[in-house]
């Protein structure tokens, strides 16, 4: 009996100890390390040098220790965007390994936590809960509704994220003050793409248009931009399939309407496999119109499918950033790093995207370190104060300082999937080591259409 009482006492003490520890986790304390005022010697927060504040003098809290900075990737490794995101995660891992090899940031090595939500909003929220007390920032958050679902928590935590979503609401402080959007949003992108389509159409009247999209912030933001552009440009929308495309369902109705209404162009905001189903169905029925759409609708691997010739003939690809291998100053570093780290991996345009996202957080962390404040609030302040993040031409420079209408990006580029060029580069066998390509040829360098350039950004185009 004495033994049992003794064990109960020990158990009670352990339980109290655990409770105390658990309570402590809720409010992470700022490190007691002495702090100094942020030094200001004008050092640019780029490259691999440590900021001006001595590493031991930098304030820090959640996700940062004396030796490490932990970052979280809210990924989709098994859902509808898995091919894209897998390549992005891979590129980010290579990027951060490179940073670590060069000494890290503020003397701290970068550690990554990767969580897969399978493009499921609920799982994404769960994953955020899992890592919210472990990471300093999130250089990848997949999905518009998925990211929207964690915005209140992000704000509560002063957590910055780089979204893999180009929803036009992210630049609106009311919706996403912690969301460091990358590239031109879906809405402005659609204006650019359709302006380009209209400018290059040789008919007497503007081309007719079908708009097809997923429901939700992704699909309908692109569709809304397309509708704004169509109205301004006088393009007749012969089929409005906004929100009509649901991945995993039979697409006969959408295909049927495209074929029936026979537009000159189809503008899609979907994912590649669903676009493949719809395009396959329409082409099989003799539809010969052109296709384009929001960036995530296309994946160069569609050139491996039976649709390759149709893609080659009819698809025009919009872009927020250049394709892999495009001749811009920042490309060589990426190519070299990927070739060294993953020589046998298949080349991917998404690697460029991953590189850009990592560059954003890298720059922000260096600025925060330079400011002497690697607390999450300090990282957020740094993010909102940087004048310009340069990507070496991988995409236009980006900032989050000032008014959204002044800083939202408005440029897009246009690429043409080219089957011959793709096959010359090895096609499906193209690896980083053998210098392959993704078949995407630049046909229009970054441009801002009049519509996008003059658009008065006051918030999201689509708000549900």
């Amino acid at each position, binding site marked *: 009996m004495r033994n049992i009482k003794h064990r109960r006492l020990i158990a009670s003490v352990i339980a109290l100890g655990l409770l105390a520890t658990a309570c402590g986790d809720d409010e992470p304390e700022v490190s007691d390390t002495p702090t100094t005022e942020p030094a200001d010697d004008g050092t640019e927060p780029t490259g691999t040098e440590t900021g001006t504040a001595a590493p031991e003098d930098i304030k820090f809290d959640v996700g940062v220790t004396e030796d490490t900075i932990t970052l979280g990737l809210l990924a989709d490794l098994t859902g509808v965007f898995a091919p894209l995101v897998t390549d992005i995660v891979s590129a980010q891992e290579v990027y951060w390994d490179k940073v670590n090899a060069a000494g890290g940031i503020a003397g701290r090595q970068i550690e990554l936590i990767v969580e897969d939500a399978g493009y499921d909003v609920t799982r994404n929220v769960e994953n955020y809960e899992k890592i919210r007390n472990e990471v300093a920032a999130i250089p990848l958050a997949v999905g518009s509704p998925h990211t929207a679902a964690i915005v209140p928590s992000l704000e509560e935590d002063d957590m910055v994220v780089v979204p893999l979503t180009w929803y036009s609401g992210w630049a609106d402080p009311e919706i996403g003050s912690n969301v460091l959007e990358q590239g031109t949003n879906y809405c402005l992108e659609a204006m650019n793409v359709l302006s380009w389509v209209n400018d290059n159409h040789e008919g007497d009247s503007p081309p007719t248009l079908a708009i097809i999209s997923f429901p939700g912030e992704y699909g309908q933001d692109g569709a809304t931009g397309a509708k704004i552009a169509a109205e301004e440009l006088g393009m007749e929308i012969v089929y409005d399939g906004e929100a009509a495309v649901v991945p995993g369902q*039979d697409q006969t109705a959408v295909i049927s309407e495209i074929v029936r209404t026979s537009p000159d162009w189809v503008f899609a905001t979907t994912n590649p496999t669903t676009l493949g189903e719809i395009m396959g169905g329409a082409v099989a*029925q003799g539809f010969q119109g052109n296709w384009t759409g929001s960036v995530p609708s296309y994946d160069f691997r569609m050139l491996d499918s039976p649709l390759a010739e149709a893609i080659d003939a009819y698809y025009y690809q919009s872009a927020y950033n250049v394709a892999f291998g495009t001749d811009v100053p920042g490309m060589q570093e990426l190519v070299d790093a990927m070739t060294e780290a993953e020589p046998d991996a298949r080349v991917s345009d998404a690697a460029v995207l991953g590189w850009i996202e990592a560059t954003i957080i890298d720059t922000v962390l260096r600025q925060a370190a330079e400011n002497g404040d690697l607390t999450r609030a300090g990282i957020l302040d740094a993010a909102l104060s940087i004048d310009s993040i340069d990507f070496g031409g991988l995409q236009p420079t980006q900032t989050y300082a000032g008014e959204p209408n002044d800083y939202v990006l408005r440029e897009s580029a246009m690429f043409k999937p080219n089957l011959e060029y793709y096959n010359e580069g090895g096609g499906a066998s193209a690896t980083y080591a053998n210098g392959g390509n993704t078949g995407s040829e630049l046909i229009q360098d970054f441009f801002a259409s009049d519509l996008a350039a003059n658009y008065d950004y006051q918030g999201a185009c689509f708000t549900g």
Partner: protein
Amino acid sequence: MLASLPLLLAQTAPVDPAVQASGGGLTRFLAMLVSGIALGAIYALLALGFVIIFKATQVVNFAHGAIAAVGAYLTAYFAVTLNFPGSLIGGPRWLQWSLSAVVAILMTAVVGLVLERLFIRPMIGEPLFSVAIITLGIDILVRTITDDFIGTGVRPVGDPWGAGIWNIGGIRIAQTQIVTVLVAAAAMVAVAAFFRSRTGVAMRATAFDQEAAMAQGIGVGRIFALSWGIGAALAAIAGIFASVFPRSPGVMATTTAFFAFRAFPAVILGGLDSVGGAVVGGFVIGIVEVAAGTYLSPYADVLGVGFQGIVPYLVMLLVLLIRPYGLFGTKEIRRV
């Protein structure tokens, strides 16, 4: 790198002139019918597999879709990745691909046999509900492993017909659709012939009364295994043709496996234990689904997104209200 602008965008001809020339209504109807029959053939194959396993074992196999994905993946692997056995024996491309597909189908049948032996055979005599739940577990197991092999991208099955189209009297028909229907028809004839064979009769006897069949010297365990083997082979064929142009760009994780569940209304409509019903149900549901998508699409605003996916269930409900055991299902009589 700035390529010369391939701007041949002027006044494109959005619909093939051959299609336009042939007139709207009839062409559209016939194109819909062909597409519906091709989809129905895939549903019929899936439904046949469901029914054969149900008839022999009284178990609804929820792992059927996962097994279909195994067959589709193995075809992509043998035909595209390895070109086995084509690289060894040569011959025309269609022959090489067909041999790869046959190897994949046979291997999927073996997977079916192994699953039955490992997970179903030990459950003989246990409540059928438990066995059905076990098939849900098999589904998760097989699907997870298969999805890992498929990877994150799309794996084209490499069929020789690709995006080829035949223009027959102004009606465009994807070559794969014709092949799908022909292969499905051959599989159905083979199944019908099997049921007339000695082993087939033994399976029918087992389905009718297991104890009586055992008393007649029929190896019920062997019949169970055989039903899983045949069911898996049929699922593999369906999985392959569900992964070709124009319906799909290739085999995909999760998507290919879940496709099989769309055949459920066909199974129920035809009658869970009716081979003929599975075939009829498959074609009816396939045609109804495509017809709904084709003709009701202008009313999507009112009907809602994805309405064509609901229509098969409405048809199924309607039939069940009139014939609770499906069109051809065996009426079950319970005396209380």
